[in-house]
């Protein structure tokens, strides 16, 4: 059998299984897709469900905090935060959450996500939105910022990214608000590149706008509380290029502010050329809101 949602028993009798991300047929015992390197466990877990899971992409440049954001989001969901509860599908879905929480609890940031797609951590959760009384199956990979940058600069370098973004039901674009507030144009340009890439990939005509829900999340907003006061106003003032691109090409975009670290300190050493960043304590703010906005529209 060749189908997107082959069940495990069917897979075991020798049929190929199509990758959920890129559609490539894979052997029944494959651990990862031979084409895009996505874990095939996703396909096996999804096969038992009534409907295919929705893909939600968390994108942003390197060091913006994608891993930390996603790790805390998953951990909050699994603790029935807000109107949500979430059930992980498969032990592999818990790895990311565990890595982030164990590091942050010990006042350390998690290790950088490797560029190699076969080493990314993926999370597959069944999320129950209690207020709306609906379940949504979500797959969220933790992609490396360097890989995203490489794919944006040279499309098809990372096929898995292109396939993911093509099939995503919604995206969270994480922007370093602290850097933007400090006058750096880098977050503005990276955000523009990312959305231009999606625009180009979707092939929308000039008179069409992309309606995929896109939440622009202003991260590290603890450094610039103005972002919390009014995220839209902050974006218009500090990320004007991105703001204008959103207005002209994306019909379903909203701005949010978020922060995880309550206070940041530095470990210094006369012998070392660099300082180590130490998250002294956590203070979660604005983590759930963009996710809820996406879920409401998936």
């Amino acid at each position: 059998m060749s189908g997107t949602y082959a069940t495990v028993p069917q897979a075991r009798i020798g049929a190929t299984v199509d990758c959920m991300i890129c559609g490539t047929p894979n052997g029944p015992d494959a651990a990862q897709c031979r084409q895009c390197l996505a874990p095939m466990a996703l396909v096996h877990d999804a096969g038992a469900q009534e409907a295919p899971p929705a893909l939600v992409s968390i994108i942003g440049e390197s060091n913006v905090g994608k891993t930390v954001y996603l790790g805390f989001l998953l951990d909050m969901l699994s603790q029935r935060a807000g109107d949500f509860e979430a059930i992980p599908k498969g032990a592999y879905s818990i790895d990311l959450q565990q890595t982030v929480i164990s590091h942050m609890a010990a006042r350390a940031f998690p290790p950088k996500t490797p560029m190699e797609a076969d080493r990314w951590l993926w999370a597959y959760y069944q999320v129950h939105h209690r207020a709306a009384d609906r379940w949504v199956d979500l797959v969220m990979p933790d992609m490396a910022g360097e890989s995203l940058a490489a794919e944006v600069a040279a499309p098809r370098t990372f096929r898995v990214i292109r396939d993911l973004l093509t099939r995503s039901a919604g995206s969270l674009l994480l922007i370093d608000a602290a850097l933007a507030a400090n006058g750096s144009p880098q977050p503005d340009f990276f955000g523009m590149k990312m959305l231009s890439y999606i625009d180009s990939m979707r092939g929308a005509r000039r008179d069409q706008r992309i309606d995929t829900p896109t939440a622009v999340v202003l991260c590290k907003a603890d450094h610039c509380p103005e972002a919390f006061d009014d995220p839209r106003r902050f974006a218009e003032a500090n990320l004007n290029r991105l703001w204008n691109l959103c207005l002209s090409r994306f019909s379903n975009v909203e701005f949010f502010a978020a922060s995880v670290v309550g206070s940041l300190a530095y470990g210094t050493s006369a012998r070392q050329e660099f300082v180590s960043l130490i998250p002294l304590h956590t203070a979660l703010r604005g983590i759930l809101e963009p996710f809820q906005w996406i879920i409401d529209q998936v």
Partner: protein
Amino acid sequence: MPISLFRRKTEEPAPAAAPRRRPAPRPPAAESYEPAEPVTLTDDPLRRFLEQGRYGIVLAHGEAWAGQPGIEEVCRAATAAIDDRFALVPEGFAALPQTVDDHPGCPEIDVPVEPFLLALDPVTHAEFQLFVDAGGYQNLELWPEDIWPHIIDFRDLTGRPGPRYWREGRHDRRLADHPVVGVCFYEAQAYVRWAGYRLPDEAEWQMAASWRIRSSANTLRRYPWGDALDTTRCNIWASGVGRTVPVTEYESGAAPNGVRQLIGNVWEWTASDFSVVDAEGNPVVGDMLMKSIRGGAFDTYFPAQATSCFRTGLAALARTHNVGFRAALDLGGR
């Protein structure tokens, strides 16, 4: 000054309740802001001290003001108010972890703590309003000279002097009895100076929360109520409230002397600089001077970061949504 030695908690611990999970609300938008009405104070300067809650000032200057009409009555009222709003923290020790990796067994320093008085509750928005209305931001005597250039930045959302999240120099009246937040260390320090108090130092705060009194038992508490986390006794992230609550809530989480909310609701500024080292013994520093804050807040995610012994710091000029303060007073009334 007659002060009750120990307040007795009269009520039974709150029964275990199902964890509450509510979505964190967004800050009130400008159109939903309900500014507090101005308070009209008496013309009598001595009685005005009482109305402003500046009992410490009255006690500190009572003798110097002898002979003023009504001073004895005012001093009695101030003493009674302090007796009602402060509790004695007995002599004891605070074991301060010295490394940022504060795991059990890490290096600690035992700091002896003399008995002192600690406010039962953090300072509220309504109390801080009296300081703002009295021109506290314009009274340079209350502020260290090196901070004077920064005072102009201590504005609310509308550019008026006041805590970061106020509007037009007024607090939201619905939050009147919530702890004041959006104030930096220097604003907290200016308030307590104005009112005749001081901020507790880090060891004093820890002594009050860990209750490591001088005794042969040599025990300390992880939380003011005991050693086990109980989210019905404090407002941290796991409590599911997602915002500040009035300062008198969580009575069951009080220390043995009745001091409430040492754990959770808001972090509390202390008078101490934040000073720890990393695993290699190198100093841990911030972008600017960091002061020690204690106790955790409503959005503190890890329960281990909201305990009586957890040390952390924050830039002294930071005006965040989750840091407030409470007052302390020496036994002699200073």
